[in-house]
């Protein structure tokens, strides 16, 4: 069953049509990735799903409910969570405060404390740095924090926008391991990546986005072996 279903989604910035009516779906329990070059519209897709950018036309359905008209902040308690492009951790706040904000919908303080402990086991680096101001974390640590923060709301669907951006190869591997691991705990994943090879290697299915339109879709394994994908996105 589709947990997230996007149908004919159209988004414009002024006169620029950034998304020209795209359709895709993410089934319960899958990892689906959305790959594409710079400016293809990946971030636009992610942000419009979460209500950060207004939708011109089309529908977004989550868990059987049309969510176009639902204010973005209400989607979090419904089980949607996003690690935005560029991390966007709260720079002036500590690691701990960032994680507390991730649990904004949760009012039980004890539960928040336990969840933070759990996140700190998953990300030991964060555990060591609870009191550190987020703006002084390294890029990799900020990525971990952004992921930990998004997990604090116990999402059913976690959306990640280029989590590997700007990280060293070792850290990229770590980030993908964490995503795989988190997926095993029963969370559905929608992943946006420029690192198509890595993304496809952990995904069940994938879509290729080109200048606002989906040009290809299929099983991740098939796409990994597809000649045109290889040429355009895998640098082979």
């Amino acid at each position, binding site marked *: 069953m589709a947990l997230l279903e996007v149908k004919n989604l159209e988004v414009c910035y002024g006169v620029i049509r950034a998304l020209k009516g795209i359709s895709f779906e993410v089934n319960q329990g899958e990892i689906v990735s959305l790959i594409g070059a710079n400016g293809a519209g990946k971030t636009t897709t992610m942000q419009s799903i*979460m209500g*950060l950018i207004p939708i011109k036309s089309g529908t977004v359905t989550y868990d059987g409910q049309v969510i176009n008209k639902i204010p973005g902040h*209400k989607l979090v308690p419904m089980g949607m969570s996003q690690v*935005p492009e*560029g991390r*966007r951790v*709260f*720079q*002036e706040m500590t690691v701990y405060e960032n994680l507390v*904000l991730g649990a904004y919908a949760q009012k039980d303080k004890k539960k928040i404390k336990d969840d933070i402990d759990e996140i700190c086991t998953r990300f030991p680096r964060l555990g060591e740095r609870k009191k550190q101001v987020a703006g002084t974390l390294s890029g990799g640590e900020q990525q971990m924090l952004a992921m930990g923060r998004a997990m604090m709301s116990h999402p059913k669907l976690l959306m990640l926008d280029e989590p590997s951006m700007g990280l060293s190869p070792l850290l990229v591997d770590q980030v993908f391991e964490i995503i795989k691991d988190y997926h095993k705990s029963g969370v559905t994943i929608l992943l946006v990546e420029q690192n198509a090879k890595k993304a496809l290697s952990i995904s069940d299915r994938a879509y290729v986005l080109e200048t606002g339109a989906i040009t290809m879709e299929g099983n991740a394994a098939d796409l990994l072996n597809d000649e045109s994908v290889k040429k355009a996105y895998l640098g082979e």
Partner: protein
Amino acid sequence: MSTIFDGLSLGAIYALIALGYTMVYGIAKMLNFAHGDIIMVGAYAIFTTLAAGGHIGLALVVAVVVCVVFGIVIEKVAYKPLRGSSPLAVLITAIGVSYLLQSVAQIIFGAKAQTVSMVSFGSMKIGSAEISIASVITLVVGAVIMAGLTLFVRNTRTGRAMQAVSEDKGAAQLMGINVNRIIMITFAIGSALAACASIFYLMQIPSTEPTLGSMPGIKAFTAAVIGGIGSIPGAMIGGVLLGVVEKICLSIPVLAPYTTAVEFAILILILLVRPIGLLGKKRREKV
């Protein structure tokens, strides 16, 4: 001694008003030029309550309620529809709201200044210095309010959400924070603080007129900029600094006529040395 004391208490008034400017700027990223006029609204609320025979405590409550309602309605009707449009459009609207409030006050209460029948607090002697009790009350209550506000912003769920919205609206929404609600709460808090400022202001000068808010509004805005607009402790420090400087200048006969000039000279000096104000933060550009 008593000059410093009066300066501190005037500073507390400026600080209370400056907080409204700075919090709204920090969270809604707009200069609410109508904020000064909320003090005038509060002053007329107090005037009306006292004239009707109400107690001063009741007058304060009425002022807070009226100012908060005005703050929320102004935000909803005038500013919210403009969210996301150019800062210039918002600024012009704020100036328009300011004139609107002043004009309506003039229609209802007339243009002439009216005496507010405030309770007189008198003064007390500490050693050789004569200190006005109104100043003591202003200083103490002002300090308590500001300490409370600081604790609120640092330690409550809503306070943290306010910090988050001021840093990054989009990321705040991704946390499940209702950004519109936080902006509304910010306007409400700023207006409540302005209502407190208006009662303290009337304790010093028991007279109100439609343009009452202009001067303290501009001074408090200056204080907010000196402290670093967007910074809560900055607004407090800027306000107190400006209040003390003003009272000292007024107490020195040669300087007295140039008081306002001295205050703005300080603003310019501080901005030359530190363009972001005393406690302002340089915002990292988002990638």
